[in-house]
């Protein structure tokens, strides 16, 4: 039901550019020095739960307008066509702004409890200046920096946190990375010894620390609410068959923004050795996923179970090496490799762990973690399916291991369930149970295939598959994009989650539990994009 005509008007204004197509269709030039481009996108997502199209529920009607611009204010050593800039040969200013209005908040009464959280966003996401002083370049401002060879898993790509609030990690990461204020300097070295095309990159993030953003409030469709009841919070604890009220006090000790002591930074040395494209990386930062230290637990004088926890983001040290090699003769594949060792990963330790497993007694530890990713990209002919164009096949094997593992490491899939005392459900009382034990080794395999059809290649199907061989949880996406015109692009996609056997959730967010009643993340997505 529409609540307010104002919002309808807003919606229509936002989409007037679709109704009244503009003449321009590429980058718009304003004078010789300014370029603008962008898009307006209507993004409709329907939770199809366990019964596609029979049990649908519109969860998003996210309308996005994005404007990107570049201002070439310094060319060939002259700024603003006037001032000589000496060794600075070129400079540009780039900005990327995004406005979002999710009209589903005005259509669904059930979203009223969210108090418009997630409904709108108006942000200058990126704004940076590039200076080129060969052989040095410097980028200053709010930006994204992506390292590594892995697609859509975090190993070296940990510099910018992710905003997973509105659609998890199912969107292009370009759109969900949280840009940070930083300096990125590059020294282009070239040939040295046996290495070619080398450069050294240094990044410094003086004070802009942000955590990954995760929604936790029901009924946001991608709120992280564990695997149990989604619309209830634990309010009780059960001790010796007696139910007590639960009160949790949270102390937020995550690094304060705008403090120089929170500096983060790193370097990357990249080059080519014997046709192998490689990099050596180091990043010193904070874990963007918080850990929880349990400071105190116990019953107070009112028989309330008081828990005081401290949320912390420990320092991390990430060491990494990447390589990619185009093997043209035998496999005709590009082989990608990325490996990291990270110190400082926060982990929880199960309650009741012995002293040797939890010497501080706070249910918290930092672990050393290694990651190895091996990937293959291959343009492949499948003539029976496409006689004109190859399929781009890409697969990854991702292995994560806790190097100093202990058997009491606990995952984050808690389960809120009704409190049961003496075999009877107690109304309005809920307890939280966490049986999610971390495995020392975690694996996931991904595969994607894409190609294009039609005389001008305007139909672009994509198939994505991810599989966790331990939990047997899986995820599939089938997408068809249609480039209807130079400005209009339509896409339809279906996401679904399933498993081969068992009931282990695994660490990756894969498996049928995500499609079952309650969580219901099987989705049908329709998008229409007007680009300019």
């Amino acid at each position, binding site marked *: 039901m529409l609540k307010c005509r104002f919002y309808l008007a807003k919606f229509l204004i936002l989409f007037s550019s679709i109704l009244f197509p503009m003449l321009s269709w590429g980058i718009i030039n304003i004078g010789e020095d300014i370029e603008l481009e962008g898009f307006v996108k209507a993004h409709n997502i329907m939770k199809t739960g366990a*019964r596609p199209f029979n049990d649908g529920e519109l969860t998003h009607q996210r309308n996005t307008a994005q404007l990107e611009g570049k201002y070439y204010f310094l060319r060939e050593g002259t700024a603003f066509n006037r001032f000589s800039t000496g060794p600075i040969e070129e400079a540009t200013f780039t900005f990327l702004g995004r406005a979002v209005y999710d009209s589903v908040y005005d259509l669904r009464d059930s979203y009223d409890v969210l108090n418009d959280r997630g409904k709108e966003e108006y942000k200058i996401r990126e704004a940076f200046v590039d200076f080129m002083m060969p052989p040095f370049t410097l980028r200053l401002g709010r930006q994204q920096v992506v390292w590594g060879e892995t697609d859509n898993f975090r190993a070296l790509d940990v510099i910018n946190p992710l905003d997973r609030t509105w659609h998890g990690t199912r969107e292009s990461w370009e759109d969900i990375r949280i840009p940070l204020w930083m300096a990125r300097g590059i020294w282009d070295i070239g040939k040295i010894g046996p290495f070619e095309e080398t450069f050294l990159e240094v990044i410094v993030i003086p004070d802009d620390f942000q955590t990954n953003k995760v929604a936790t409030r029901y009924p946001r469709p991608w709120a992280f609410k564990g695997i149990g009841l989604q619309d209830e919070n634990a309010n009780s604890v059960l001790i010796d068959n007696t139910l007590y009220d639960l009160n949790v006090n949270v102390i937020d000790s995550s690094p304060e923004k705008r403090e120089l002591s929170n500096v983060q930074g790193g370097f990357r040395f*990249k080059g080519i050795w014997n046709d192998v494209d490689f990099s050596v990386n180091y990043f010193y930062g904070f874990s963007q996923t918080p850990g929880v230290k349990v400071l105190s637990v116990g019953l107070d004088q009112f028989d309330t179970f008081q828990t005081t926890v401290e949320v912390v983001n420990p320092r991390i040290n990430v060491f990494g090496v990447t390589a990619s090699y*185009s093997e043209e003769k035998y496999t005709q*594949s590009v082989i990608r490799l990325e490996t990291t060792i990270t110190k400082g990963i926060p982990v929880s330790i199960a309650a009741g762990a012995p002293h040797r497993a939890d010497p501080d007694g706070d249910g918290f530890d930092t672990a050393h973690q290694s990651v190895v990713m091996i990937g293959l*990209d291959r*343009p492949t002919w499948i003539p029976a399916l496409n006689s004109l164009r190859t399929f781009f096949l890409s697969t990854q094997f991702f292995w994560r291991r806790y190097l100093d593992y202990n058997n009491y490491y606990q995952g984050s899939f808690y389960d809120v369930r009704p409190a049961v005392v003496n075999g009877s459900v107690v109304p309005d009382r809920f307890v939280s149970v966490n049986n999610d034990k971390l495995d020392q080794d975690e694996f996931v395999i991904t595969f994607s295939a894409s190609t294009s059809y039609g005389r*001008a290649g305007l139909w672009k199907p994509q198939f994505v598959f991810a599989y966790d061989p331990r939990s047997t949880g899986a995820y599939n996406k089938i997408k068809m994009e249609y480039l209807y015109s130079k400005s209009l692009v339509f896409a339809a996609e279906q996401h*679904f989650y399933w498993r081969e056997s068992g009931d282990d959730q695994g660490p990756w967010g894969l498996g049928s539990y995500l499609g079952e009643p309650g969580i219901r993340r099987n989705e049908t997505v329709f998008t229409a994009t007007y680009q300019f």
Partner: protein
Amino acid sequence: MKKCIKFPPTYLNQLPGFLTTLPLLMAATLLWLPANSNASEDQSYQALRDWIDNPPTGTQASPGQHLTSGDREAVLEALIPQSAWGYYFFDDMDMEITATRNYPVPDGWGGEDMDTDFAVDEAGTLLDFTGGGYPFPDISPDDPKAGQKVVQNMLWRPGANDYDMPMVTWLRSEGGKLDRVMEYTSTNATYARGKESLVPGYEEVKSKQVMEFRSPRDMAGAKDMSIRYVDHHKENSGWLYMPAQRKPRRTLASERTGELMGMDMIREDSMGFGGKTYENNWTYLGKRKVLATINVSTNPEFGGPSQWVPHKARWEVRDAHVILIEPKADNHPYSHRIVFIDAETYWTHWMFAFDKQDDQLLRMNQHFLKYSEDFGTEPPEQAPYIKQDFSKSVGHKVFLHLGQVDINAKKPHATLTHCYTNKREFTAARAKQFYSLRNMISGRR
């Protein structure tokens, strides 16, 4: 024990509504089989061979003449390869004929800086050549490796690199329906310049190229860097930067037979032949006179019922080497490829490739060129999105590529490109910076 991956039972009951229709939709898409085109003309390989071996007699095209469809039998059929007749002859066609000229090569071309210490292997592949002139200035029709030698001259021709090339590409269906327009810019530099490299220390590099898309927005900012090596046996190195990924990705060079980005060409079709000599069998078919848009006044407009071919353009009668190229690989889409390469300038004018399934025309391309020394008096059209100083091209004595037509005869569909090419000379320091892996780790966004 073998395990079967299966959906949970709850899914099996619930999928039909959507997933049973999905395969039907996909099958319908996949079965969208191409229709044959322009069947009024014989577009078989044999017909073109007959045209080459037994040229139709005709009267000479005279400078200043404007040829129309009325001149088809008398003049044009003898000068336009038969496979192209169905596209290039149409009711209101207008081909301006200009005198055949000689086009001097750049100063110093083939002079003392040229590399003369090279060899040719059994397959006709050029070994250890680093440029500075044509490796085979004299082509003997009796030479069993004449075909490979002509193509090597084409690959090492002057003007092949060292330019800024903003481009606009139109993808058109029959009837002129515009399916897609793309804007992009290629910048290219010759490293191998004979006895010296543009950038000392990079003697193994033949040339480097960076190409960046400007529109449509779903491709804007995508850029590709490729490195070609003087060793013909070594595959190119390539990286692709996609703004959505914000990082470069290594690309594979050895797959050259799939259509690219909806365009009606494969990588191996580049300038008639962009593959590896040793992957093909070669036959030199002699010389033929053909009409060529070798020195157009400006980027030609497109005409014909589907707006696929140059119209009101300036043509010149040229002697062309005719090379038959037959891929060795069983799974190659082509049975035969015939390329017409200018006998004086070694630029490709026409290419015809025939379908391995039936020996009928599958793809063709035809090129528009302009001689740099005419840029001063008769500058070509400016790109719609950038203005260039074309006087920079004067004095180089090379041809600049102003565009091409690529037709897929089986779809049928065409890709038409205008190149707004301008010469650009890089200093060693600038080339080192511009054509670097460092330059591929970020882009427009």
